[in-house]
């Protein structure tokens, strides 16, 4: 699905990481951990074509990310559901329309039944008509997850999906992501919250990667 070969990313301030190899096989479940500022978000951005690696090769569904034109990047993003660290909603649109936005921009109809089921699945039926700024942190994260999966993508990338969310809500979000993986989706969760990883242990067989000292390490044994 997504493969990184000897990838490096540098910017004006220096090199964030280098010599990074990663392969997200279909149906796999990965956690990406590491201290804040080590480049977890940057690594995810490489995986959906928002940033381009400064060295090495990123392959998205077999295509070199560097060779994709702007339209091809758009089409690739329809196959990758992303829960952004800062959610990225359109604040002037109701929650339901925000969740349906990937369908809208792809020119596909949003089936009312499907949308209702999805809202029910993430527990946002009552909030459908509210604007994103009116939602609580946990509600926003669940709305972001609903938007990430509405196109039925093959891969789901979640960047700190449980940031500023209480532990109980973290468990609920994790359960949703595990459920998606059971449906065959490839899942990658970036988080610095080790308790989340421990909580996942009984429910899913996941690989834990740790980004530190500019390298990607396999964090001990797989869970």
């Amino acid at each position, binding site marked *: 699905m997504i493969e990184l070969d000897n990838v490096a990313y540098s910017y004006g301030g220096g090199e964030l990481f280098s010599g990074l190899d990663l392969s997200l096989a279909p149906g796999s479940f990965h956690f990406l951990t590491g201290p804040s500022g080590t480049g977890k978000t940057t690594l995810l951005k490489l995986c*959906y074509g*928002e*940033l381009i690696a400064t060295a090495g090769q990123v392959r998205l569904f077999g295509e070199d990310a560097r060779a994709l034109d*702007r*339209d091809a990047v*758009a*089409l690739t*993003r*329809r196959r990758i559901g*992303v829960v*952004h660290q800062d959610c*990225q*909603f*359109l604040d*002037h*649109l109701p929650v339901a*329309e925000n969740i349906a*936005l*990937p369908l*809208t*921009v*792809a*020119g596909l109809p949003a089936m009312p039944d499907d949308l209702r089921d999805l809202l029910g699945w993430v527990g946002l039926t009552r909030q459908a008509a509210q604007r994103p700024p009116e939602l609580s942190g946990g509600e926003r994260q669940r709305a972001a997850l609903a*938007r990430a999966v509405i*196109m039925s993508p093959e891969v789901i990338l979640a960047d700190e999906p449980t940031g500023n969310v209480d532990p109980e809500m973290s468990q609920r979000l994790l359960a949703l992501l595990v459920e998606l993986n059971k449906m065959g989706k490839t899942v990658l969760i970036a988080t610095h919250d080790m308790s989340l990883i421990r909580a996942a242990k009984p429910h899913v067989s996941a690989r834990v990667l740790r980004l530190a000292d500019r390298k990607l390490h396999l964090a001990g044994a797989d869970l």
Partner: protein
Amino acid sequence: MQRLRRLFDLLAGDPQAERAVPPTGFTARLTVLTAGAMAFLAVFAMALSLATGRLADRWAAELAQTSTLRISAPQGQLDAQTEAALRVLQTTPGVAEARALSADEQRALLAPWFGPDLPIESLPVPQLIEIIEDADGYDPAGLRARLQAEVPGAVLDDHTRWREPLIEAAGRLRLLGLVSMGLIAVATAAMITLAANAALAANAQVIRVMRLVGAKDIYIARAFVRRFTLRALIGAALGTLAGTLAVMLLPRTDAAGGFLTGLGFQGLHWLWPLVIPILAALVAFVATRQAALKTLREQS
């Protein structure tokens, strides 16, 4: 075909895309106002062009066909010289008709200055001969040479001397009208580009989110292009209407008899202003499309 499809895609309505980009009040008003004001001005530039064009054509046609021969001679010789001049003219190639003006006609010509009842017969007034050319025209230099030999008192006035600069001025005015329309189009494009860029900048975050969820550039551009095209169309339609009414209501100063009565549209030319809103919409379409696709390419 591909291009046509893309053009259609860009204009086709998509209420969902329209909703995704929130309306920005001030750029909307700016575009409608600009398009309206520019269309209003364009109506006058167009009227000026058409009127001066007509004027230049009419003057050119009139003066290409008529000229006058003036014969000044002592009282006793005037009739003889007039006869001689008419004989010369009858054998001049390119002259269709030559006719001595009657005393009444000459009196009418002088009436504006000397009043009626001027005893013209007793005054040493030159005799005028009106020459009407055929399509090919005659050679003024050749005619002058022949007249000099046979009719010493004859002076050929072929009008060009004083009217040619007027025709040139009219032609120049027509050109100025056309240049004005071009400048108005360029200014409109510039203003709409500015307004579109302001709207794009104000919506940078919206555009970012749409890109993140898989929107193609053309889809995002369409929301802006449609909006600005429609606003320019509406503004220009209102401006054109106002400008056309203003031209219609110009006072009819027939007494002045010349340029001022001519400013306006005649007959089917009244349809020309309809072109203005269409051109404005086209200008807005191209300007916004360029601005939007450029801005999108520059973003991640």
